[in-house]
């Protein structure tokens, strides 16, 4: 009975590892698309409304795709520190502290956009944001392909490795 329970547990754990790896791929794609969409909203606010960054961040913390809201919320709280810290640092720290599900490459792209944001003229800011959106979309497509190719493999590998381990141990 204990052996059976151990086997089930082992298979369960390895399956969870496989499924989790597959889930992360999906999450990465979802987060990249959500950030691209939020940044599109930000670009629209900047170009059409000529809105100020703290106001835009506040709006995005309420209306941007769900997964990005904690990041914008953190930015809003941290804007009180402008003057003590450059905005690019506030942006980067908020991104690193919030659980967004972005991969390392996507995170780097968003951080890069923050270096230009709020500091230069509208053309430079929009250029940086649009470039970031493009890169995020490309990375999301890559993640999607990877998920399609490897997502099921990760899950199957997880289950199989669990079964293998059970057979070997038994």
């Amino acid at each position, binding site marked *: 009975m204990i052996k059976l329970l151990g086997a089930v547990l082992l298979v369960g754990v390895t399956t969870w590892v496989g499924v989790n790896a597959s889930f992360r791929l999906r999450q990465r794609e979802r987060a990249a698309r959500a950030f691209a969409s939020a940044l599109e909203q930000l670009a629209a606010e900047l170009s059409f409304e000529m809105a100020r960054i703290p106001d835009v961040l506040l709006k995005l913390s309420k209306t941007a795709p769900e997964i990005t809201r904690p990041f914008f919320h953190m930015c809003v709280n941290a804007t009180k520190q402008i003057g003590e810290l450059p905005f690019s640092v506030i942006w980067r720290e908020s991104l690193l502290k919030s659980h967004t599900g972005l991969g390392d490459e996507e995170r780097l792209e968003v951080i890069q956009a923050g270096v230009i944001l709020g500091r230069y003229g509208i053309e430079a*800011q929009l250029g940086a944001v649009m470039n970031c959106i493009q890169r995020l979309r490309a990375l999301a497509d890559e993640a999607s392909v990877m998920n399609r190719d490897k997502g099921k493999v990760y899950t199957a590998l997880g289950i199989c490795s669990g079964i293998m381990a059970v057979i070997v141990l038994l």
Partner: protein
Amino acid sequence: MSLRQAALRLPAEDRLTAEELRLRAGRPPCVVLPGRERELLDRAVTGSDIMSVIEIATKASAHWALSNVCSGFITIEGGHRLGLCGTAVMKEGDVMNLRDVSSVCLRIAKENRGIAAPLLGQLTKSGVPTDTLIIAPPGGGKTTFLRDLVRLLSDGASGTYTRVALADERGEVAACCAGVPQLDVGSRTDVLTGCPKDKAVMMLLRSMSPGLVAVDEITAPEDLGAMRAAANCGVRLLATAHAEDTRDLLRRPLYKELLESRLFSKAVTITVVHGKREYRVEDLD
């Protein structure tokens, strides 16, 4: 050393009396004090310094500042004024934006509460304000004096409360930020910001039924027309004008017309002597 550190290392008296911070790319930063200017640092200002100042002053909204710069300057939190110079981006003959910012002038807003109090008795009759023109050269302190006089009259320091309507076209007097005056203009003062003075005076007369209309800087014939209209409505007038003194006013056609129209019965002339401001009241009748 950063600009902030350099500014904080200024002697306490200089920090209290500083009027402006001037940053010019490639030149050392300067602080403007009453009657003199001193270098803040012995190194040249970089483009990055300028963008950092704009970023901090506008709360990371440089694009907003650069697109609003066609009005000459922008008012930031605390009522301070940020003036910018650079390469203008034109569209259909209008300045749309500014790029490659080369100079920043940060004018430090100061209330100087009470500077108008010693003259209040001469500028009122039984507590009621007389029509007063405040005269000084640029940077002479006209706006600061006007703000304090408005505050005193509005708060009833003359013995009678006066409902003041303030046409603050350039946002220098009340320095409204998100609708809230950043500088004290009194509890019975209604402020109309951003509207050309001639239109603003008419709007204020119709909507706010003021006892006194205050205007900062009469510069155009339209402003004079609006003042006339206000005077015809029985409203008291308070305004400022760029000039050394009343004789200097008479040399300029617009101001000559203003004096000849006898809209104002008193003039306050502000002069800076050895870094200190002196105020003189004259009868214009």
